[in-house]
Every structure is written in structure tokens, then in C-alpha cells.
């Protein structure tokens, strides 16, 4: 028995060490949010400064802007990109021709596997001043629009392209939930004389609600976090007014300007808010009977 256990340690220790170095040590590096960073002080800085960087952040002239942009962008995502795959799954569910359904599904997944760089590059090509969209505008007698230079266009572009990218893939979980509905429910309803829309309204949608609720809670928990990668590719100083979010600001201040402690403090603040939002969303969902835990 003892010999067996030694082999097990040989197998698990290398991965454990890597997780320690690249996951746990960075976690402990969050201490730096309360300490002054110094190149000689290594990862943990040199001296305690207390809440200095947090106070600095609350007085930052961009504090309000990045929080507003993050929340607004997520709100639009929640209003448009969140329901899109649900509707898509409902439409697919009503298709009786299985081959057609599968064709639509497998094609709708493709954009999910494209790199963000490609999606943004494509969008830029379609929306350039000589691009196909602007030609359409010109034919309608409208002026050429430089979409990526206009702050008021940013959110629409971000949300729109996210729908294109994610709608098919995100619908998988809903399609699976719909496939799990007991067919007897429909048969009974049919015998009772229920119409197509009544079945959707009183069987399909209620059966889908638990899944929707779980994903909604998770989405609300992310209300204050927007991934860095896509915004970074899409924005430029002309659109910072609407496009600059917390993660891109952390990158510019923390990495580019090497304000490490400040960047970590902003990120830390952000994580705390996210955690509280998740708790709040779950509390609300539990009240209506769909809690995560």
C-alpha cells in the first residue's frame, strides 16, 4: 500500500507545484494592493500603505467613467446578447425537420471558434469608410460614418458582434434543456386541444426557466466585469469616453504605466463588487425559487 501512495505523489506533485506558482502565488500578490511596490521589494512590495491606492482610485478622474462604461456595456449585453440564444433555441425547437435544424446549429457554432482578432478585423473591414455598410449608406444618400471613431457607436458594435459570435454556441445549453422536456406534456396538451403558442407559453417556456435563471444569476454576477480582449482591440482614444472599461484601464495604468499596486487595487475592488453582485443576484433568485445555492 505505501509503495502505491509514493507513485501517486510522483504523479500529482508536478502539477501541484505549477498551480502553486502560477495560481496561488499571484493570489497572494493581491497584498500588493495595500503595499508600496518597489523593484527591489519583489512581489510583495516594501512597506504598508493601507488603503492609499483605493482612496486614490475613488478620487481618480476616470473612476466614474470606467465604472459607468463597464456597467452600461454589461447591461446592454444582458438586454440583447443574453436573450438572443434563448429565442434562437426556442425557434430551433419548433423546427420539425431534423436535418435542417442540425445544419443551422452546426453553422451557428462556427463564429464561436474564431479569434477575437478575426471578428474585430472583419467588423472593421465591413465598416470601413469604403466598406459595404458605408456604400449602402451612401446609396441611401446618407453621409459616410466612421463607426470605430464614434463613441456613441461603440456599445452597439460590441453587443452586435457578440450576438453574432455567441448566439449559436450559447444556445446549446438551452437546446439541451428543451430536449429534456417530457414529450408526454405536449401530448396531453394536444389532447386537451392546446394550440402551438399555448404549448410554447405554458410548457416550453416554464420548463426553460430554471436554466435561464441560473445563467441570469451568473450574468448579473458579471455585471462589473468585461473581458479585456475584445474591448482592447476595438477601442481607441477617440472612443475611450464610452469604451474604456475597468479591465482596459487596469491594463493601461497597471501594466503600461507600471503602476502595479494601483492596478491591483482597482482589480481587487472590482472582484469584491463582483462577489457582492453574485450574492445579491442569488439572494433575489432564491426569493423567487431559483437559487444557485
Amino acid at each position: 500500500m505505501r509503495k502505491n501512495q509514493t507513485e501517486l505523489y510522483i504523479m500529482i506533485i508536478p502539477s501541484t507545484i505549477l498551480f502553486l506558482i502560477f495560481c496561488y502565488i499571484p493570489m497572494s500578490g493581491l497584498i500588493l494592493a495595500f503595499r508600496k511596490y518597489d523593484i527591489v521589494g519583489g512581489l510583495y512590495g516594501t512597506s504598508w500603505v493601507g488603503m492609499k491606492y483605493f482612496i486614490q482610485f475613488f478620487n481618480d478622474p476616470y473612476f466614474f467613467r470606467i465604472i459607468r462604461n463597464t456597467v452600461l456595456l454589461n447591461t446592454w449585453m444582458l438586454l440583447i446578447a443574453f436573450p438572443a440564444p434563448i429565442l434562437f433555441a426556442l425557434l430551433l425547437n419548433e423546427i420539425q425537420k431534423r436535418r435542417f435544424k442540425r445544419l443551422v446549429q452546426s453553422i451557428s457554432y462556427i463564429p464561436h471558434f474564431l479569434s477575437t482578432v478575426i471578428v474585430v478585423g472583419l467588423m472593421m473591414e465591413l465598416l470601413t469608410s469604403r466598406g459595404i455598410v458605408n456604400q449602402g449608406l451612401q446609396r441611401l444618400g446618407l453621409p459616410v460614418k466612421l463607426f470605430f471613431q464614434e463613441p456613441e457607436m461603440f456599445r452597439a458594435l460590441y453587443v452586435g458582434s457578440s450576438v453574432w459570435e455567441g448566439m449559436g454556441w450559447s444556445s446549446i445549453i438551452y437546446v439541451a434543456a428543451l430536449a429534456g422536456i417530457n414529450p408526454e406534456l405536449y401530448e396531453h396538451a394536444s389532447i386537451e386541444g392546446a394550440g402551438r403558442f399555448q404549448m410554447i407559453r405554458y410548457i416550453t417556456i416554464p420548463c426553460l426557466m430554471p436554466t435561464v435563471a441560473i445563467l441570469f444569476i451568473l450574468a448579473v454576477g458579471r455585471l462589473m466585469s468585461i473581458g479585456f480582449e475584445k474591448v482592447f482591440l476595438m477601442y481607441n482614444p477617440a472612443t475611450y469616453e464610452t469604451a474604456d472599461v475597468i479591465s482596459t484601464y487596469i491594463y493601461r495604468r497597471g501594466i503600461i504605466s507600471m503602476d502595479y499596486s494601483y492596478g491591483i487595487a482597482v482589480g481587487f475592488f472590482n472582484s469584491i463588487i463582483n462577489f457582492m453582485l453574485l450574492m445579491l443576484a442569488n439572494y433575489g433568485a432564491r426569493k423567487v425559487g431559483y437559487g444557485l445555492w
Partner: protein
Amino acid sequence: MVKQKTSLFDILNISLLCILLMVFIYPFVYMLSMSISDTFAIARGEVMLYPVGFQLNAYRAVFRNNTIWRGYFNSFMYATSGTILTLIICSLPAYVLTVKNFRYKKVFTTFFVITMFFSGGIIPLFLVIRNLKMLDTIWSIVIPPALSAWSIILFRTNFKQIPDSLTEAAKIDGANHIWIYAQVIIPLSKAILAVVAIYSFVGYWNSYFPALMYLTSAEKQPLMIVLRKFVVVGNFRGSMEGFIAADGEVQDGIGMERSIKMALVLVSILPVLFIYPFLQKYFISGFMVGGVKE
């Protein structure tokens, strides 16, 4: 589902989905048409859907460009070695966590699962990598994404489904755990290995952020960074020597530039499109097993 007659609703539904289908496909058709159309036709705005005229100079320019070739090679190297690393790093502990009498099973499971929910964020990781002198090396690109607790759990769930009788038989024959892992478990887990390998390959291939953060030398940049420079930032002139005067043909400069961009995008998604049929075969099952147990 109850059989029903085709109604107005069905017709509307099918037409709506057909429109969506076109929205999904259109960008790909457009890219292809742009990459082979006559450059003057592109400049005049005649290319909307199908190609107008024909040229292959855009592809010639792409294939002649050393930066692109090197990016392609680098990406391929990062993706392949990263995938192999992911499979090793994640499947080994996953096997250990399925061994019934392993003493610290709970401790190790918690240790890995915690990393799914908490992270230090980008700056502490950057500092760790810098302190380890790993900046501008392949390790900075390949190691952090390979540490996926999600994949460990996925492997563990699948390894658990292998009947105990098989491993017991090997044990009676005097086999140790390393032998059981290599000769019994791994050969029986090809499907899940394929799922994780495909996911991770596509992930490495498509990512640009680690390279942006950690790589400084021009000759180490992966394809997505090259693509960002040419297609997104539009830093084109000077980096594509002689692309306008390809083979002495008369071309429109800006039309050619746009044609080259689209050719480059198409070339860079080839590996993913090539993997896609395999993905189709495996990924739904992989997507679902994640949530099955525990």
C-alpha cells in the same frame, strides 16, 4: 414532439432561421470574394457577395511575407506544445484523484477547485512571470493557460466511469499506478483526450493576450499578434514590401490592401476550419459531461 401540419408559423420560423443562417455565413463568403476579386472592382465597391474579376496576388503577397510565415510557425508551435502540456498537467492529477484509497484526495481536490473561482488577476501573474525571468519565452505563453482545474475535473469525471474491474485486474498482475494510468486509463479515454486537446489547441491558436503581455521580440510573435498589427491596427505600409507591384500587374493600392487583409484572415482560420469537423463530433459530448457529476 407532436406532429403538426406545416403552418404559417412554420414558414415564418424557417424563413427567419434561413436569414440567420445567411448572417452567419455571409462574412465568410465576403472574405473569400474579397481575397480573390480584381482590386479595381474592390476599390469601386463592386464586391458585395460574389467575386468580381480574379487575381491571386493577395495570396501571393501573404505567402511571400516572412512575418506571416513566422507567425504561423510560432502559433503552431505554441498551440501544439501547449496542448500536449495541458493534457499531461491535467490528466495526471485527475487520475490520482480517482484512486479510492488516496489519503489526501479531498485536500488536493479543493486545492485545484479553488483556482476555478479565485485568481490574482493579470498584474500579479505578470510580476510572477517577470520574477521567474520567463518574460519573452515560450513558457510564459504555454504554461498559464495549461493550468485548468476545469480540465482536471473533466478528466476525473471521465476516468471514474472506467470500470474498477479493469484497474483491479491490472493491480492483481502487480501493476503500479503509473502503469495503470499509461496502459489502462489513457487508452480508454481517447474521446475525452480529444475533446480537451481540440479545445486547448483552438484556445492557444486564437489567443493574443498572453503574447501581447509577455513577448517582446518580434520574431517570437504568434499569428494573432501579426494579424492584429495588419488587420486591426492597420499597420500595413512598409511591412508588406512590394505587395502592390506583384508581377508587374496594374493594381489599385487600397483595393489590394483590403484584398490582402481578407486573404490573411482566411489563411489564419484554416487550422480551425480544418479541426471543425472533429470538433463537431466530440464537442457537444464534452460540453455536457462538464456538468454531469459533482
